[in-house]
């Protein structure tokens, strides 16, 4: 049974508050620049960006659910479609396409043609290992964790390193159903 097509994010995008795209890009650039100055190690910066993204993601998911009114997704395929078409549109103003499904349906790639975080950005030679948009992978991981899916999100292709598009690989590790949190005492 084919998954139901998710509602387009355009309607919601028109309703949420927006900030100036350049302000957003420049602010993000300043954050990364500052992290590089403070931490100096590119690996550390990557980890820190991922952690920041995770903290954002765990809060963002509620806003997303409240504004977009999607019902819960039946399976991971639908989840990926919803992230790409509704979620990214709502928060970044761009949509992504979902491809490269593996045989079990647990691993896919989100391809972003256009990424507002990297406008005007070039990586210098000293920062070649840097995943500039690592915050996005943290956000997706954090958000999915709050809806009981443990995932691993990595960058496969990055335009700042010379590839032709941004490709994020999202792999579902497991679904964690909720359990009764109280022990049966008293």
């Amino acid at each position, binding site marked *: 049974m084919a998954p139901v097509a998710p509602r387009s994010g355009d309607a919601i995008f028109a309703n949420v508050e927006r900030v100036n795209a350049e302000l957003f890009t420049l602010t993000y650039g300043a954050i990364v620049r500052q992290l590089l100055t403070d931490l100096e190690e590119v690996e550390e910066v990557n980890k820190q960006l991922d952690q920041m993204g995770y903290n954002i993601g765990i809060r963002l998911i*509620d*806003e997303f659910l*409240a*504004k977009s009114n999607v019902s819960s997704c039946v399976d991971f395929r639908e989840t990926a479609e919803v992230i790409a078409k509704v979620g990214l549109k709502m928060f970044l103003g761009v949509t992504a396409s979902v491809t490269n499904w593996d045989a079990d349906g647990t691993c896919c790639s989100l391809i972003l043609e256009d990424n507002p975080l990297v406008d005007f950005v070039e990586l210098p030679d000293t920062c070649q290992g840097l995943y500039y948009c690592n915050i996005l992978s943290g956000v997706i991981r954090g958000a999915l964790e*709050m809806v009981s899916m443990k995932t691993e999100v990595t960058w496969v292709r990055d335009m700042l390193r010379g590839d032709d598009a941004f490709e994020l690989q999202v792999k579902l590790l497991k679904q964690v159903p*909720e359990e009764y949190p109280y022990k049966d005492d008293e």
Partner: protein
Amino acid sequence: MQFFGGSEISPSPPAPTAAGNNGNMIYVFNRNGVCLLYREWNRPLRTLNAQQDHKLMFGLLFSLKSLTAKMDPTSVDKGNLGVPQLPGQGCSFHSFRTNTYKLSFMESPSGIKIILVTHPRTGDLREALKFIYNLYVEYVMKNPLYTPGTPIRFKLQIA
């Protein structure tokens, strides 16, 4: 969990009576059973202390959800009663009514549960619960000083 005074949240549902607020109590839980918010406006009888009251409420909802998911006549059989379900999957109830009160419930896929206990004649409160969820997002989630998973302590001023 603490009771705290200060300004109230007025859920402003489409009230069936002319009088403004006919809500009695509100609870907000997160997915781990932590009661993030509890307010009461009209509760004549209190039998348990706050901690046990919250546990009881959470346990009640948890069990009712399992029950409704299991009894769903439209879905294929999904495991036995008591098997943990993902929040949002399987059907879930949205209200129940007794002769003295009506309890309305909403759960988001991220596990946030909002419960409103009101007068039994109250109409369908799903819109009001969604409104409250939006408020929660705006004022709680977006507050940088709030740690997710802890009870809400700051005053919520709704203009």
